[in-house]
């Protein structure tokens, strides 16, 4: 299968001089077309930073990202991002429907009315049909997060980057949303990269799980999830192979965790 995205030796520091904080310290991995990759790693290790670099929204200090064979120099068509900071990434001056429709701004094939119809469908799919004409700030955190996901899905991009998109929704909605994401990714042959703190989710959703170390961050493990393409909330999660992989990921996280417990040094 062709390579969709490739990160080569990405490095990034914040600040300069003595106060500089090295975040990414040479991160390399690649994602094939149609693949679903989960990224897990400790809080503050640089997952968001990495995702921004993959989306072409942040220039790495060193290394490069190529998307469909071409080196990224800035944001590119075909990549959509669902941001971690959902409450600020939604526009307060647009209704929820308008926010979602805004995600289709690069779509020239649909008419305005079609876009609105599709926006409503997407809002319904994330469970918010009644809230199309409300504003984001009239929603609960979890509802806002779902609007942000709907906007990300609206663009039908080849590559979807999701930064902890389900952190604020309840367990049941979360499961539903997971299946929705999988289904749509399948239907539109999307490639997805998902940052999550939920190891179960990481394994359940992905074809591969990339485990990052703590700061300065490198790729610690790159674990293949050989659970087949069809996932099911009950059977997959009970699958012994699922539990095994889950255990492996947990173990990987625990290992470098044990080396330096909670207290970190800047």
């Amino acid at each position: 299968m062709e390579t969709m995205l490739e990160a080569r030796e990405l490095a990034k520091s914040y600040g300069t001089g003595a106060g500089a904080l090295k975040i990414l310290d040479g991160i390399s991995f690649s994602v094939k077309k149609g693949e679903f990759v989960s990224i897990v790693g400790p809080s503050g290790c640089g997952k968001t930073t990495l995702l921004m670099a993959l989306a072409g929204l942040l220039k790495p200090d060193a290394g490069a990202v190529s998307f469909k064979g071409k080196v990224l120099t800035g944001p590119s068509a075909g990549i959509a991002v669902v941001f971690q900071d959902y409450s600020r990434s939604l526009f307060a001056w647009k209704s929820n429907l308008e926010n979602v429709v805004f995600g289709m701004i690069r779509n020239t094939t649909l008419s305005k009315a079609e876009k609105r119809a599709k926006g409503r469908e997407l809002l319904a799919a994330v469970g918010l049909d009644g809230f199309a004409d409300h504003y984001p700030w009239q929603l609960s955190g979890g509802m806002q997060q779902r609007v942000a996901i709907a906007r990300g899905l609206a663009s039908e991009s080849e590559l979807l980057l999701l930064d902890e998109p389900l952190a604020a929704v309840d367990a049941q909605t979360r499961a539903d949303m997971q299946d929705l994401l999988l289904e749509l990714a399948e239907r539109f042959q999307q490639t997805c990269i998902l940052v999550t703190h939920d190891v179960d989710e990481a394994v359940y959703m992905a074809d591969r799980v990339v485990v990052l170390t703590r700061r300065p961050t490198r790729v610690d493990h790159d674990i293949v999830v050989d659970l087949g393409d069809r996932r099911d909330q009950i059977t997959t999660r009970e699958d012994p192979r699922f539990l095994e992989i889950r255990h492996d990921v947990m173990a990987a996280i625990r290992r470098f965790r044990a080396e330096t417990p909670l207290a970190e040094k800047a």
Partner: protein
Amino acid sequence: MKRLADKSFWNAVWLPVAILAVWQVLAMRAHTPLFPGPWQTLLAISKLYPQIVGQLGFTLSRAGIGFLIAAVLMVPLGILLGRLKLLGKVLEPAIDMLATLPPPAVVPIVMLFAGTGDAAKIVIIAYAAAVPLLMNTYEASRTVHPSANLVARALHLTKLEAMLHIDLPAALPMIATGVRLAVSSALLVAVTSEMLLATNGIGVFIQRQQENFQISGGLAGIAFISLAGLIINSIVFQFEKRWLFWHYRNANSKG
């Protein structure tokens, strides 16, 4: 009658009434035509209003045209400079320099190029109204929250689209205050420029009253300018209530 029982009506009225009362008392104690009180002003208004209204028409139409020109040019320019950050920063001192020129010093220059007619006055009014509009728009669009900018870039909006869909709405609240400042600045400079390059208008009227020591007549003219300002301001306020509810949502929904 219902209005009188309305608390918000009294809220809006008590301070002006108090100020008028103090003014009247001071005027009565000063006892000179150079310091008329509200009562004398009222008398002057009742005597002079046909004349004032006629002159005010000239002034308002010039102020209106000047303001519109400024708004049409400066809001886009402010957003542009806010987005093209380097350009904005380099030109910032230039804006400060041009903004600081006093109208009485600008008038002679404008006159060289635009004569003494309406064109010259409109240029000066537009110039004065431009400054607050440009500054507020520029400041607001320059400081749009980074998260919103990230979204714009992730949707790979063109610079133009980002300005239209993100910078403009995000800057609207500050543009609205800019508009308030610009409206008053336009009125003020309209009157001042009439005093300097006078042919007609309320500025000439006021000046004539003053030269003849009819201070109360001058105040009558000023009262009408203020009234115009008040009306325009309440229009801006309605606009804010209608279009910027998302920005002032906390004030509207006090928890």
